[in-house]
């Protein structure tokens, strides 16, 4: 093969190597690079250089702080301002559906009212502040700031939840009370909370039913997903 052809092939392969290392080449391109590297083992040193470049580039980027936790609140406020507030479904229909869904999901009575939970955490998700408070319920009362301590882990299923900005502490408290849920962590970045429910995590049917039941309460809950 003429030398200039060798050079152009070498340059072509060299230009593909960064994506070869990140695994972003097509199958045919990957095979082409594999074959070239097998025939030209000296080029393997390039892979080490690229790995170093990748590592240091990643470290540079990871050193940049994350955006502030309130940025999602500002986005939602902006959407409200420009496109109008979000619509909430009828509350009455939720009460009926959550009873139906949860009752079907659990073999034991899970809707236990005051007295069943020692303390119920209440989130006040004010538009300007994401302050997490422990609320006064007929059992005990404690108060925790947004960055406060996590509750001790107990058995159950933990869900990742965000609440509507418009949801009041009273309504959130009532929802948690009725579903036997308690906030064990949060607020996290993006306004997320970990809420623990008293169901076995190894029962996907029950977990799915709980998610569906909670999703019907879109006037209070914005997002819900099982923590994996």
């Amino acid at each position, binding site marked *: 093969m003429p030398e200039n052809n060798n050079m152009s092939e070498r340059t072509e392969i060299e230009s593909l190597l960064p994506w070869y290392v990140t695994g*972003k080449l097509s199958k045919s391109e990957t095979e082409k690079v594999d074959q070239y590297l097998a025939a030209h083992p000296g080029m393997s040193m390039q892979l080490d250089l690229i790995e*170093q*470049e990748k590592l240091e*580039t990643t470290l540079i980027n990871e050193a*940049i702080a994350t955006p502030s936790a309130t940025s999602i609140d500002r*986005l939602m406020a902006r959407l409200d301002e420009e496109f109008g507030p979000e619509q909430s479904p009828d509350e009455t229909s939720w009460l009926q559906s959550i009873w139906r869904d949860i009752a079907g999901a659990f073999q034991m009575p899970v809707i236990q009212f005051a007295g069943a939970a020692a303390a119920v955490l209440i989130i006040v998700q004010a538009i300007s502040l994401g302050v997490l408070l422990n609320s006064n319920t007929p059992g005990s009362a404690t108060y925790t700031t947004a960055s406060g301590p996590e509750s001790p882990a107990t058995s159950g299923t933990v869900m990742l939840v965000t609440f509507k900005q418009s949801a009041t502490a009273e309504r959130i408290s009532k929802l948690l009370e009725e579903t036997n849920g308690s906030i064990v962590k949060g607020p996290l970045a993006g306004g997320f909370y970990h809420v623990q429910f008293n169901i076995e995590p190894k029962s996907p049917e029950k977990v799915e039913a709980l998610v*569906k039941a909670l999703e019907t309460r879109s006037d209070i809950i*914005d997002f819900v997903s099982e923590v994996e």
Partner: protein
Amino acid sequence: MATYTTTTDDKYLLEQIAKRDRNAIRVLFTRHQVKVYRFLVRLVKNEAVAEELVNETFVEIWRCAANFEGRSAPTTWIFSIARFKALNVLRKRSDEELDEGKSANIEDYSDNPEVTAMKGNKAEVLQQCLGKLSEEHREVIDLVYYHEKSINEISEIVGVPPGTVKTRVFHARKQLSVILQRAGLDRGWP
């Protein structure tokens, strides 16, 4: 309300955003805001401006989700919007600086690569030399290595043909070797 999990597909989220589902934009935002923010910080070099641009980007996504045709990956589309927003800010900033006769240079009081090389910290030298690449080169290096975008994805984000992307990254790496050599580190390539 649609069901979203940590594995919900971004395309599905965009479909729901087009139907005006606030939960979908919330999930999409939470999923991508950090990387978009870092991409923007590297472009505009100002954290407050970058944070504002992240919101501008997602407002635009809310506004135009119905126009997403799915021919590219959603993240490619998101990065394209973010980059466009950043370029607008940079153009405006450049005009203002020309008007006011200001310099955009930020003085760097840290050791230069040569001094760091003498101290023997190769990783730090490499980071400093990466920082000395041109904006054009640094952008594609970030997209390849940190954001792990393919050639075609970078082509769409930056708005140049795939061949140009490959050439630009190749030259960026060669330039990095030159800068490293000046700093006293010969890495044996090219």
